[in-house]
């Protein structure tokens, strides 16, 4: 979360000689990140990022307290002028005495909803404009001033970091409040006029007529709000269970400022000074008088917490020999109590240690010695620590992992060189796409909480994504050849899915263009013995698909997208698709091709045109090699209709082959294949 505060407001709490820009620079290095300082008129406005563990810092006082610890490290004066935690208590403010006859009947249903409940009634309130100082400060900090009562509530939140709420006391029916969990479907109209349908388990307050008058920790109800006619108010300071608040805020979309505080969990001890300071301000600015006794329901006071940290441990993690007295002064300035001990019998880890008492506002955040080390190290200054390269050691990278990254990189660049484009698609696809391609949803892992139907099922193949890419890029290019290398996820029983890498390619040119790309990949990786057999896939057109084998192992498939899908997706051109097991490539690649001695004797080349209507090329090739012992290579020179012109290469590695002998071998090949 971010908060805005002003420089002059900060100076209410802090005595310092640091200017706004010094404060920005130094606080950012050692504490909260002051993202910007903006000069507006004669004021400076800080925009400060507060990390989720330090909601105690999300106030002018919280920042002053940090500054008190940080600025002296940079040679700047910084001392708290007021510490509201010490200045205010119910007792010191006289709030424990009976204040009047107004009454409120409070019932809390359910444990762990509200860790502290305080309230007090004030009458004779004069609702009017706020004094200029308060209104201006709020406005500079992005809060719109409304009237003195509401403004004080907001002013308190920014001053001390504890949101409060103020009801019109006369609008609370029966002067009764029941704090409880909501039921699903209950409704409230909040202060901003929004009608909210409650998801259930929200913390709400019901009055004596069963109206919900507050969506606790988020926003008050419209039915009990303070307006210009308000005379009596109920001043209300609470801390709630942070989980309920976050849940309600997220589910209803009501991300109010108060919610961003409450959902982080607030210090129950800060309720007291906030209420006292609030009463002081309300008396002064609205003329209000206390007219009820103080209500304070506080089921469980926090226990004081101690953490032990050894001097050596602090020095070990920081990597420098920080002095003891520096450690104690840093911690004390942050509000910790520190006791130093020395025990020579404790050789390990160190004889010197500190017992550190954690202030209640840091109770959620500081538990172990590392938390203490962090406090010391950051205030000491990370910028002061030297930069040293981590010591070099050798860790063996598993071979299959090494191969994965190496081949991925190589194939990506190889395909790019061939003119293909890499796409990175989401790992999830839509149920619609699965249906459209007549695949089964049941075979896919499904997301339980997807945010869009477009990304609901984990891919078991990359091809649906590539088809989608082709649909979405339809007509943008004359020719589109794309690829993706990514994991697919196959469901298993009672276990994580398998995650296997695939290489998928699509080309809107022709089958042999795509097949040629695959061949080029296999050649680039020196992988031999790849063969293609007719395939039968629903995804592809009949007779235009193949299973790809390496020996007897199936390693992928290739085919022309079935005409019915071309029609369904109104694709303008035919689409050819292939998917290969990437792990096969990783296991079988070799960096250097195996060497074959060049043939040094004569080679006779003979061309022949063959009618292929009765035989396919791969059978022809297989037969030719089995018949002729001097055939060393065959090559397609030309094709026309069913005819192929094929060049046959003959050689005898022991002596120069005679042309007649070669012709004879070709004749016996032709006799066999043309039969």
């Amino acid at each position, binding site marked *: 979360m971010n908060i805005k505060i002003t420089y002059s407001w900060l100076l209410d709490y802090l005595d310092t000689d640091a200017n706004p820009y010094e404060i920005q620079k130094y606080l950012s290095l050692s504490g909260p990140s002051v993202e910007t300082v903006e000069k507006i008129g004669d004021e400076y406005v800080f925009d400060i990022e507060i990390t989720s563990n330090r909601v105690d810092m999300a106030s002018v006082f919280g920042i002053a307290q940090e500054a008190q610890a940080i600025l002296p490290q940079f040679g700047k004066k910084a001392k708290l002028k007021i510490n509201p935690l010490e200045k205010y208590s119910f007792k010191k403010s006289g709030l424990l005495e009976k204040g009047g006859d107004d009454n409120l009947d409070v019932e809390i249903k359910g444990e762990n909803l509200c860790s502290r409940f305080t309230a007090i009634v004030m009458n004779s309130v004069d609702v009017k404009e706020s004094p200029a100082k308060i209104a201006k400060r709020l406005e500079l900090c992005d809060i719109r001033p409304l009237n003195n009562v509401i403004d004080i509530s907001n002013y308190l939140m920014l001053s001390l970091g504890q949101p409060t709420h103020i009801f019109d006391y006369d609008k609370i029916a029966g002067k009764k409040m029941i704090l409880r969990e909501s039921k699903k479907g209950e409704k409230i109209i909040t202060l901003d006029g929004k009608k909210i349908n409650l998801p259930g388990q929200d913390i709400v307050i019901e009055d004596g007529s069963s109206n919900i008058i507050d969506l606790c920790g988020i926003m008050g109800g419209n039915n009990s709000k303070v307006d210009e006619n308000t005379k009596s108010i109920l001043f209300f300071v609470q801390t709630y269970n942070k989980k309920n608040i976050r849940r309600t805020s997220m589910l209803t979309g009501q991300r109010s400022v108060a919610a961003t505080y409450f959902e982080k969990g607030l210090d129950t001890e800060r309720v007291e000074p906030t209420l006292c300071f609030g009463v002081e301000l309300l008396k002064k600015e609205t003329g209000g008088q206390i007219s009820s006794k103080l209500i304070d329901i506080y089921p469980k006071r926090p226990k004081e917490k101690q953490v032990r940290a050894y001097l050596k441990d602090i020095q070990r993690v920081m990597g420098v020999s920080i002095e003891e007295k520096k450690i104690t002064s840093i911690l004390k300035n942050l509000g910790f109590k520190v006791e130093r001990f020395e025990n020579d019998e404790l050789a390990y880890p160190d004889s010197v240690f500190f017992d550190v008492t954690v202030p209640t506002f840091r109770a959620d955040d500081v538990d172990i010695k590392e938390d203490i080390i962090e406090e010391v190290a950051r205030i000491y200054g990370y910028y002061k620590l030297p930069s040293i390269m981590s*010591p070099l050691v050798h860790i063996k990278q598993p071979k299959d992992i090494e191969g994965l990254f190496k081949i991925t990189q190589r194939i990506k660049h190889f395909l790019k060189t061939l003119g293909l484009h890499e796409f990175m698609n989401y790992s999830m696809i839509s149920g619609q796409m699965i249906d459209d391609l007549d695949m089964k949803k049941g075979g896919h892992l*499904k997301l339980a909480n997807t945010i869009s139907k477009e990304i609901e099922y984990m891919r078991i193949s990359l091809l649906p994504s590539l088809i989608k890419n082709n649909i979405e890029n339809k007509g943008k290019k004359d020719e589109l050849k*794309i690829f993706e290398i990514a994991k697919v996820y196959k469901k298993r029983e009672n276990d994580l899915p398998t995650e296997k890498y695939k290489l998928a390619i699509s080309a809107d040119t022709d089958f042999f263009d795509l097949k040629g790309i695959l061949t080029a990949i296999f050649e680039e990786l020196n992988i031999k013995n790849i063969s293609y057999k007719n395939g039968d896939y629903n995804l592809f057109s009949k007779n235009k698909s193949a299973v790809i084998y390496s020996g007897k192992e199936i390693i992928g498939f290739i085919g022309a997208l079935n005409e019915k899908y071309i029609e369904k997706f109104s694709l303008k051109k035919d689409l050819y698709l292939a998917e290969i097991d990437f792990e096969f490539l990783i296991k079988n690649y070799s960096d250097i091709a195996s060497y074959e001695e060049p043939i040094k004797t004569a080679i006779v080349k003979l061309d022949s045109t063959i009618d292929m209507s009765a035989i396919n090329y791969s059978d022809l090739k297989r037969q030719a090699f089995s018949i002729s012992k001097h055939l060393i290579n065959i090559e397609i020179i030309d094709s026309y209709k069913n005819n192929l012109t094929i060049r046959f290469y003959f050689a005898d590695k022991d002596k120069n082959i005679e042309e007649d002998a070669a012709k004879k071998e070709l004749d016996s090949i032709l006799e066999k294949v043309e039969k």
Partner: protein
Amino acid sequence: MNLGDTADLLKKELSKANDLDSLKEIETSFLGRNGHINKLLKTLKNAPQDKRKELGISINKLKQETVKLISEKKDLLIEKSNNKKIDITLPGKKYPKGSLNPVTYVIEEISSIFEKIGFIRMSYPEIEWEFFSFEALNMPKDHPARDDFETFFMDFPKHKEYGKMVLTPHTSSGQNREMRRLGKPPIRMINIAKTYRPNWDASHVPMFHQFEGLCIDEKINITHLKGTIEYFVKELFGNDREIRLRPFHFQFTEPSFEVDITCDICNGTGYLDSKKSQKCRLCKQGWLELGGTGMVHPNVLKAGGIDSSKYTGWAFGFGVERVMMMKEGTGINNMRDLYDGDIRVLEQF
């Protein structure tokens, strides 16, 4: 053919020759083994005794003349050929130009930077049990990052020990996996992988990439974290970029930091001009946020079976796309451009 005819024929042929190939043919037909000159020489033995010497001298003269004429013609033709003009401004032959997603290039660069200092790149499940994504990282059950708004859950029965199945919301789940794989330190790991969060709007995408660094050993302290990240930043972004560590909060590290680097657009000043009238829109007053890092939390070491009194470590997790967009010259400043799959965007890289 007699001597005179041969000389005439040579002149006639040479005058017709207009390229080096036809000149080569002429040379062979006159000076070759069966050429006209050799044929004339063969007639010598049939010539009368008294004329033989004279004839011999004449043939020899013709031969020298032939060699000379051919050589002169050759020089002429070479010069002619050299003087032939081509329009060197015509385009070259068109070869196909492919492309890779910009993320690929950045991943390659990051791996290579860490490889040089002995960090091995690893790979872990993208679909994980809650235990590895959260518990093992010191993130308790009620941590906001674990709710439906921050993490994708799978529709799958819970594991008895490890809880629900999730799509990894960060690469940090690899930390525990690596500790288990190696059994004990030293660990030097880099994990670059897809990560997923339920957030999809004008500038967010539900899938993106992170890279995680993990270093665990004896005597590892904050100074090592600083040194290593500084090395990385200078390698990737350039030697003139500075880093700062800011205190931050993460469950799996303690102390935790956020790393900022100086902005290259405004040179770390926060303003685009020397009069400080134009604010830099890219950075926060001179600093760009790189990502989160910190010393590995003792509970995380413990979950990985590592003795936290003996070993310490640091870890970081940065966004790949973020780093890419922070690098000079890519020009892409919206995550969606990388994943919306528009060929007109992707083909440029």
